């Protein structure tokens, strides 16, 4: 799609030279063949052409023809192990010819781009990076070269050492690569400045921002942006899989169903469409059908990573653990950095009651997303099952410190402390937990809130802080499961108060923040690093 656009752009550009005019017939003919995917035929009619455009099309046709043949060969191979040894035979020839031209500096931006692609296919990524950088200098507006560059850059350090042309296209590139490298804050900044600079109507930017918010799990914002995007660009299919993921997470059935129907009408043979439908079925708990649609997505594009992972989830739902493991493994093979697949594998083994075994997978996931509390909570749970409470505590604490998504880390930590008879720490955790819950504004039915109040009431009771104890006990009364206990405690407190009226009144600390408790240990422990090295082999 991108390419035909490019070619038409080349054709209409003002730099229409005499050479181009001479090659025009052959070029137009070849272009038509090219559009029909008859690459060899296109290349044949472009043999003698001298102009840059014709030359690019000539080489590009040869390249694509090689790729296509390679794919066809793969199917027709004579044995499973031979299959992988099928190579694009054209690559070597192309490289020789292109490198000659490159040395003579006869390549234009597109030629350089193609040369880079060929080099990358030959696994010469270092050379490829150089060539792509050169291509961006020669032809800064060719997004393809930027994208290729994006695929080759693996970390921030590499990015620093690139000398890129100073154009507005670079900003797009940087924003894109920041998203890829999970540097979401920087990416968002870039996109914002691009919007301010006049790209406010670009649906591309809007979608990228939405994806970025999705990556940092700011679901509400992402959802609203996606809704906006849908309004502006109703027939868009790209990125809709991400949108559907968001809807899925929020269990918004009607919206998801609407989206699925809509996309299905637009084009049902797109990976994204299949993915959306898969999500839809999954939300309706029709997991077999969901898996079927993810499979379809994979048939459409075997390198579509997300579908493998999602299919793994579906198999998990169907309790087909071995198939789930298989699917996750595939996902990892396509992309080693897919933390969801690692996490999924961990979950699978956890379900198979192998807590030690799944530690490895959770650790991998944690390495990839060091600031994601879910992995940390999972790790903590495993350690808890293995009775390694010290490690478990570290994990939960860390999970809380990096911003707990599910708000469960503190409760778990508190329970651990309770188990270890460290009542003071346990109380602190419960206090913080309650603060957290209430500061969110929304009081979701957290089961653990009542437990927290119950524990706190008893704790204060033991410490003889009657005011706090009675306040907590009253809170307990508003929950079904702790009502009786709360009432009993209140009665006890009343009794004891009457007995020792004089002694206890002088202590008057505010309710939720007993300064003595919250001040002493939290700040110091917040900075303590997560040291799991003792258990990491």
């Amino acid at each position, binding site marked *: 799609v991108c*390419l035909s656009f490019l070619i038409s752009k080349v054709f209409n550009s003002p730099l229409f030279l005499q050479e181009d005019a001479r090659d025009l017939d052959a070029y137009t003919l070849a272009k038509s063949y090219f559009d029909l995917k008859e690459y060899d035929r296109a290349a044949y009619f472009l043999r003698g052409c001298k102009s840059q455009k014709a030359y690019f099309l000539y080489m590009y046709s040869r390249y*694509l023809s090689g*790729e*296509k043949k*390679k*794919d*066809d060969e*793969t*199917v*027709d*191979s*004579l*044995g*499973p*192990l*031979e*299959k*992988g*040894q*099928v190579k*694009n035979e054209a690559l*070597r020839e192309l*490289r*020789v010819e292109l490198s*000659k031209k490159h*040395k003579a500096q006869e390549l234009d931006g597109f030629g350089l781009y193609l040369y880079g*692609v060929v080099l990358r296919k030959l696994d*010469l990524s270092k050379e490829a990076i150089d060539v792509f950088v050169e291509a961006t200098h020669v032809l800064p507006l060719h997004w393809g070269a930027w994208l*290729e560059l994006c695929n080759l850059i693996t970390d921030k350090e590499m990015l620093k050492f690139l000398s890129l042309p100073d154009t507005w296209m670079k900003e797009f590139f940087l924003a894109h690569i920041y998203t890829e490298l999970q540097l979401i804050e920087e990416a968002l900044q870039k996109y914002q400045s691009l919007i301010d600079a006049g790209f406010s109507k670009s649906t591309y930017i809007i979608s990228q921002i939405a994806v970025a918010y999705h990556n940092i799990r700011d679901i509400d914002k992402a959802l609203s942006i996606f809704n906006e995007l849908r309004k502006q660009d109703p027939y868009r299919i790209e990125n809709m899989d991400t949108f559907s993921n968001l809807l899925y997470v929020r269990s918004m059935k009607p919206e998801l169903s609407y989206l699925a129907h809509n996309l299905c009408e637009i084009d049902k043979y797109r*990976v994204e469409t299949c993915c959306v439908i898969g999500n839809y079925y999954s939300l309706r708990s029709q997991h077999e059908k969901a898996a*079927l649609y*993810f*499979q379809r997505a*994979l*048939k*459409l*594009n*075997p*390198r579509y990573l997300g*579908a493998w992972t999602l299919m793994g989830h579906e198999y998990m739902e169907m309790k*087909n*653990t*071995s*198939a789930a*493991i*298989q699917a996750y*493994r595939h996902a990892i*093979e396509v992309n080693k950095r897919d933390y969801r697949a690692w996490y999924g*594998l961990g979950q699978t083994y956890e379900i198979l*009651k*192998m*807590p*030690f*075994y799944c530690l*490895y*997978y959770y650790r991998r996931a944690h390495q990839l997303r060091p600031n994601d509390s879910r992995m940390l909570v999972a790790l903590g749970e495993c350690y808890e099952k*293995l009775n*390694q409470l010290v490690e478990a505590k570290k994990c939960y604490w860390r999970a809380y410190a990096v911003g707990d998504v599910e708000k469960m880390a503190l409760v778990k930590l508190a329970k651990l402390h309770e188990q270890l008879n460290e009542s003071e720490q346990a109380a602190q955790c419960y206090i913080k937990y309650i603060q957290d819950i209430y500061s969110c504004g929304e009081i979701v039915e957290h089961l653990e809130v009542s437990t927290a109040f119950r524990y706190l009431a008893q704790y204060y009771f033991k410490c003889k802080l009657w005011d706090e104890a009675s306040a907590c006990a009253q809170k307990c009364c508003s929950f079904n499961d702790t009502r009786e206990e709360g009432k009993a405690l209140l009665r006890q407190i009343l009794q004891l108060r009457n007995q020792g009226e004089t002694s206890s009144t002088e202590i008057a600390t505010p309710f939720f923040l007993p300064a003595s408790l919250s001040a002493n240990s939290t700040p110091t422990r917040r900075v303590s690093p997560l040291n799991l090295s003792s*258990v990491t*082999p």
Partner: protein
Amino acid sequence: MMRHTMCYSWCGPGPAAARNDSPRLSPPAGPERAEHKSSSHWSRLLSRDGSRGGDWLAGVAGFPGGRRPGAAMASVHESLYFNPMMTNGVVHANVFGIKDWVTPYKMALLVLLSELGRAGSQLDQLERRRLNRLLLPLLQGPDMPLSRLRKAIEECCPNLAGSVHIRLKLIAEGELKDMEQFFDDLSDSFSGTEPEVHKTSVIGLFLRHMILAYNKLSFSQVYKLYTALQQYFLNDEKKCGIDENDMELTSTEELDGKMEKEELDVPLREEEISCSGPLSQKQAEYFLSQQASLLKNDETKALTPGSLQKELNNLLKFNPDFAEAHYLSYLNSLRVHDVFSSTHSLLHYFDRLILTGAESKSNGDEGYGRSLRYAALNLAALHCRFGHYQQAELALQEAIRIAQESNDHVCLQHCLSWLHISEQKIFDSCVLLEHSVNKSLHFGLPYLASLGIQSLVQQRAFAGKAANKLMDALKDSDLLHWKHSLSELIDISIAQKTAIWRLYGRSTMALQQAQTLLSMNSLEAVNVGVQQNNTEAFAVVLCHLAELHAEQGYFAAASEILKHLKERFPPNSQHAQLWMLFDQKIQFERAMNDGRYHIADSLVAGITALNSIEGMYRKAIVLKAQNQMLEAHKLLQKLLIHCQEIKNTEIVISVLLSVAELYWRSSCHTIALPVLLQALAFSREYSLQYLASETVLNLAFSQLILGIPEQVLNILHMAIEPGLAHGAVLDKGCAMFLVAKCQVASTASYTQQKKAEALEYVGSSQTVMALMLASRMYENPQQ
């Protein structure tokens, strides 16, 4: 004048070390693993799993990237359409469903078979017999180049080789239709009233497989097969023929590119070079099993870790479903002590295996639960091997729980013995082990049982059990080994006997056992053709042999043996640490005997690196020799306490001796005596005879100084005999010298005749000394 070193700290094949091999040689899939010889089992496992790998997917309806060529084709085109740049052409299809593929080599075999049928009665009996014997390995073996195949046939029957060659040439140089005709004719051999080939015979099955596989090929595949055949034939015709097309392309830049690429490819062994074409599945399996068995038996012959990993990565890149490669990669990572990647490979392997396990449910197996528990077990083994005992225990708990849930006693036994290993470091777990041996015997796992017996024997030996009982136990386990022809366990058992005899101070017996092992023909050699002599047992025995020689003053011989060891076990192989330690110990002894303490001191660091306790002890000895009594005493006391904690009696006694020596050197003989008596009691209790006689000599010396020579002579009589029989040459000399001294000391009251006797003694001790000196002079001519 005392010997400086007494600690043959146990150097037998430890059970942990021995058992290191057990999971390695038996990939974790089966409980039967213990009963089978490693390499064959490995390959069997490979072929079994390899063949059934793909079928499972068929069970899961329409798994993506399905193996049906049609489905894969669709996906390829679609992907090309959606994302022209991104397709790597890697279609994740599991094509293992079809077992047999027609390859050029198979074609050559078919030609051979058809020629065989045609020749019929013209062949004489001898040729026919030879050919029949050749055929089976050819049919089952991996693909080989045509030249080798032809040679093999020529050796049996030159005529036939010629006709096969001509027939192949006709096909290869003819047209496609020749090949098609050939396959058409093939099926004729089944027809007729008296068919040449029986349908269900080995050859009949092979033929039918091939015909079926050929018929399944699509047109383009047939064409490809034909060109492959031509290439196969051409490669044989002119081996180094360079394609002309290539020449044209080879411009300067191209050469550059080639160079780069070639630099990446590490030079492989000739076999790999000779079959540079596509690897068939069988070839890959063969490669894996060969490397695995080499890793186990003879590491030096296997590919280097780096190049092996490269090969495996290559294999996996093209075929991610070839799970066994992950296991080999795990073994390979173990070689270089890479915890991270070995864990990764192991878990990857099991993730894959679980897939095949699920399919075996239908075979009456209990499905992937089995591979789950073996996965946990193997993880435990991995942690054990890296010394993460706590982790290992957690993994074991998991394995045990799953095994218990599914009543898998065999797996439980394996868990039990690993549990023993992981807990061995923490406390004595004899009870556990005894239980394990009993149960293993009960469940018919002789391998596990005799490993258990061996480690029991080792523990008991340390605990000072009577030698005859230990030898009885070893004999019993030997019976088991011979019965099940577990040759590697036989080796280990002999090595263990060597070590036990050394521990008890019977150097002659040790020498004899060592020689037995070295001159024994391995059973393995008869069975598989792999010389199994680079195992730990051999390293142990050779090390002992070297030390035994050094003790007798044959330093040249000892260094000869060490040189051999270095060749056999290069410095970075698994068992290299053994000989490194022994090498340094021998050098240390020698330096101490020569009085070159600074050299000895420099060796201490090396010994400490390999064995910290040993190193500390040696350090103390050097300090003592350099008259730094105080430091030496401090160090020895520390060591004493530590060794008493870990119950290393051998070192304890040696330390006590050294302490006593310190005392009598400072002329505190009366204080030395109780220490020596304690040492004597210990060494008697643990029947460490050599140390006992050493102690007696010390005792005698103290008493001599205290002025009771008659008493001394009495006790010397019990030490002198074993000393002369088994002692090192230096000790012999010392003992004789002491006797002589006593004789002289007690002569005051003696008659003339007794004086003469005493003189004789002095004379004989001098001869021994002289002998020893002479031998040393012989070693160092420059002195």
